[in-house]
């Protein structure tokens, strides 16, 4: 069956769902970010598997390597971009977590979001 032949893709999809589940269900915001990273990694895994070729070799043209046997370089190039994006988003999210923890003293998303907003907040006034 195709599903078992494509077991890399299947694993990537399951990881993706696992990550999304973590993002939705977990209340700790650090765990949510970990779930986010699991989702990202699963998509990277999916892309790299797309480039896989049975008996393939690295796409580096050294020593008369046969181009027909080389794996697909495009997913690898794309995923380099994807990794950079993931790192950037994680860095920004973590720095916001630092600030949130300083200001609210909790990492629990329910308690963060439930906290009443002070009347007539003026942005910047509290600095």
């Amino acid at each position: 069956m195709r599903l078992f032949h494509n077991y890399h893709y299947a694993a990537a999809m399951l990881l993706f769902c696992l990550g999304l589940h973590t993002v939705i269900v977990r209340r700790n915001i650090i765990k949510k970010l970990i779930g986010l990273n699991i989702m990202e990694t699963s998509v990277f895994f999916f892309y790299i598997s797309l480039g896989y070729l049975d008996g393939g070799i690295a796409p580096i043209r050294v020593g008369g390597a046969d181009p027909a046997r080389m794996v697909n370089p495009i997913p690898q190039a794309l995923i380099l971009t994807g990794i950079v994006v993931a790192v950037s988003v994680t860095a920004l999210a973590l720095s916001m977590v630092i600030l949130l923890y300083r200001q609210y003293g909790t990492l629990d998303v329910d308690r963060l979001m439930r906290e009443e907003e002070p009347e007539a907040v003026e942005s910047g006034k509290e600095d």
Partner: protein
Amino acid sequence: MKRVAALLFIAALAVLLLYVVSRMPPMGDPETPTATHVIPRYLEKAEEETHTVNVITGVILNYRGYDTMGEVTVIFCALAAVLAVLGRERRGVIHGFVDRSEVPSSTIVRTMVRFIVPFIILFSVYTILHGETSPGGGFQGGAIIGGSMIIFTTIFGLYESSRRIPLKVRAPLEGAAVMGFFLVGTLGLVGGGNFLTYAWPRVAQDLHPSLVVWLTVLVEVGIGLGGAMVLTSILFAMIREEEEIATVS
């Protein structure tokens, strides 16, 4: 209740995605659309067209160089975003830091780190410069430098490491990657081609190999330096606890 609903939703999504997987082209098959459409040209012609032995580097920097330009902008944007959220140290007030990052560590660890960090940086230089002939490249090298700075900072603390790479060194280099791309892109225009053309139509054909290789190395070095400095700056911004930030409520 909410948990059950989430679980059901995720289960439905998983079934859907697995169904899609069962309908996808077989993995590793040389006849799939991915393996037959655009790729053959890259694999066969990349060496003569981009003058890089490593086809992946050829794709990243040359065929899809515009993507990579966007990507280095993303890193720069991440730095600007982190600094917008956490604030940045001002020039000359390094001593004002309240540094809580210093970890008590044994002499053995300190000596080893001091010994090993220069070699890590040497390795990253190699990775950056050999991007077009072997696995590696600017991002990877930059990340390795960033990693070495993380090791150094966790052992010796922020004060020591920000003295080694002070703000006045980091700040001008953070945008190096974007500037490198813009420079090479505009030079392509001067050379008579489009933006980001490496092989200038206006120069003689036999000059192309060395020209393209030099421009590629220029971009790689820009990406490596820029990436390393951005990672270091993000690290410093995250671990510092300056008075001003700590009191924002």
